[in-house]
């Protein structure tokens, strides 16, 4: 008896499950974007705090390093008993990992600003706030954008681990495909995941170029 065909790709799957795929994809995109926005909103003040108060820089970097070592699977297990199964748990996990990447890159970027430039601005009478927004931040932008890209790409991949608590976007399709031994479902969601990471990365790269016009002409 021949096994029924189980192709890695089939139009038939897409036609019959198009709505499911779109649903999973939109959940995936939403989770990623919300996580990145929240993480940025938290990372920004933290990084500035680390910059303003050098004594806090060590602990902030150290704690983020330790937290980053905790496996995502374990993290979801640690918070799921308290936040329940589903969206909230996944979001908290995603925000945490993105936060760590973002804070590190922001701090590195701010610390890398040429001290002479800062001195010059101070000599011109810049206030602390003006110094931050019109000198330090623009100079740290390359590192910040790099952090944003890295965090976004990692988050897209990480969303799939949300399967553990039943809310993994495209990961949900991968897992369902595995349980039903439906190769087309697994392959389609895997390819979409990679494509999503690629598209978001590209968009952020273009956004980076747009906010850093001075980088366009320079050949690095």
């Amino acid at each position, binding site marked *: 008896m021949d096994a029924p065909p189980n192709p890695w790709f089939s139009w038939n799957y897409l036609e019959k499950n198009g709505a499911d795929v779109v649903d999973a994809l939109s959940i995936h995109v939403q989770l990623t974007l919300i996580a990145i926005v929240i993480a940025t909103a938290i990372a920004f003040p933290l990084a500035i705090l680390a910059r303003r108060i050098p004594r806090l820089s060590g602990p902030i970097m150290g704690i983020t390093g*330790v937290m980053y*070592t*905790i*496996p*995502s*699977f*374990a*993290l*979801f*297990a*640690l918070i*799921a*008993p*308290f936040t329940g*199964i589903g969206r909230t748990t996944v979001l908290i996990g995603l925000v945490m990992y993105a936060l760590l990447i973002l804070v590190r890159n922001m701090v590195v970027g701010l610390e890398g600003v040429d001290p002479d430039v800062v001195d010059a601005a101070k000599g011109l009478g810049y206030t602390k706030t003006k110094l931050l927004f019109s000198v330090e931040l623009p100079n740290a932008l390359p590192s910040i954008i790099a952090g944003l890209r*890295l965090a976004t*790409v*990692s988050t*897209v*991949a*990480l*969303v*799939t*681990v949300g*399967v*553990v*608590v039943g809310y*993994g976007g495209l*990961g949900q399709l*991968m*897992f369902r*495909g*595995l349980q039903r*031994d*439906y*190769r087309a479902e*697994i*392959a389609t*969601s*895997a390819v979409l*995941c*990679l494509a999503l*990471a*690629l598209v978001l*990365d590209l968009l952020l790269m273009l956004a980076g170029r747009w906010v850093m016009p001075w980088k366009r002409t320079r050949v690095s």
Partner: protein
Amino acid sequence: MSTVADAWEYLTTSSNWVGANGLTTPTFDGGWSWANDSIIALGIEHMLMTFTAVLIATVIALPVGIYLGHVRKGSGATVVVANTSRAMPTLALLTLFAASAIGFGNKAVIIAAAIFAFPPILTNAFTGMSGVNPDVRDAARGLGMTRFQIATRVELPLAVPLIAAGLRISTVQTVATVPLAALVAGGGLGVIINTGIATQRYGQVLAGGIIVALVALLTDAVLGYVQRRVTPAQLRAATGAKASV
């Protein structure tokens, strides 16, 4: 707080550590497998899977990285490998392998974990070898060393700190990847968490999370110590733990 109490009870019950029927379970074909109800057995299985995956990755990635770094070619390729692996969800690779001819279980997990363990070893070996000061290489050539001697006696010792860092990152990352095995009917410590969620025993889930997190942190600490030990004192300040490219 009952979840915390449940977790504490799970962790302090000795049968959860050694298993109700010992560390191994006989299988139908006369062999044996690690017992799924024993933290120690799952832990051993976890570390064996990690070790196998990292070993496979090292055997392939280390020579390639050292060679490419020595001839200073292929930096673009190593970056592409690193970035693609970052965008590729582990779960995607795991489910793809499990649904393919490789099949469910630990084999699919080890292969997937080995693929993710590959990039850090490759890029760090490459960066370590290619980053050796050109003056040092010139001096070695001036002393009449052959290319092979330069690679093994000059560049390689100087690259050891970065290579060690790469092995550490990749091992810690593999320890963190192996728990996903539980999702594709594999073994390892993730089983504790997965079983706990399936049976709605959240104390066990919390306990499993604590165990996996501790194992990862411990692995990182031990390998960090090893990394510092193999780094000559003169190089310690120069190369911190460079994580990514």
